[in-house]
């Protein structure tokens, strides 16, 4: 299924998340578009939603100068 609801042009920084929900419910999350440790804050949102962090690895962009991003990570049920 494809959605076409994303803005066509947007000057704001775009963050992309690839989520694979395995048949057993475990989730592999790839976070793109962040530099530095700000991606960890984004990851925490998904950790709150799904469950427990099993493993994590960083790519080269993780070690680039950090951005300042603020998230609301309130738990919702």
């Amino acid at each position, binding site marked *: 299924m494809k959605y076409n609801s994303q803005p066509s042009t947007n000057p704001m920084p775009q963050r992309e998340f690839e*989520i694979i*929900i*395995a048949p057993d419910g475990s989730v592999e999350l790839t976070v793109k578009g962040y530099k530095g440790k700000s991606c960890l804050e984004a990851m925490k949102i998904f950790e709150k939603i799904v469950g427990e962090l099993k493993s994590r690895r960083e790519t080269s962009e993780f070690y680039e100068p950090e951005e300042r991003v603020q998230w609301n990570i309130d738990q919702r049920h």
Partner: protein
Amino acid sequence: MSCVCILTPVVIAAWPQFSAAVVAAATTLGYTLMDGEQKGAAQDQQVSLEIEQSEIVTGQLGRDQRVRVMRDGVMVTFSRDARGRATVCVSGKGRTEEELRALGEELSRRVVQKYVHQRLLDEIKARQFVVVEEEVDENQAIRLKVRHWDG
């Protein structure tokens, strides 16, 4: 790319959310939802399982909350035990314990997948994330591509 992680699901759901996931998973695997109090025959082989890391929250204490599905003579009953955990009872005539356990585990895993999928959709939309792609691959994994614009 910045980082990659693996998350283990924890199911904390109200009964309506959980039973919706059961129905969705069962339908996907070809089970039929059973009405009423139909039970398996006494001579049926029976196996009880538990969904790990699950908690079914309810404000309706004492209510008998369960959902039953059936496929090829195998009945699977999902319910909430006294501790709030999701339990699964699988029964079927002429089936070995191993067969019933495998069927129960397959369906239980798919219930968790459906629960996680719906919870993710609800939560990321509430946070103004946009789902731009969604597909089920040949391994029955659900793949989502989600975008968010900082502003």
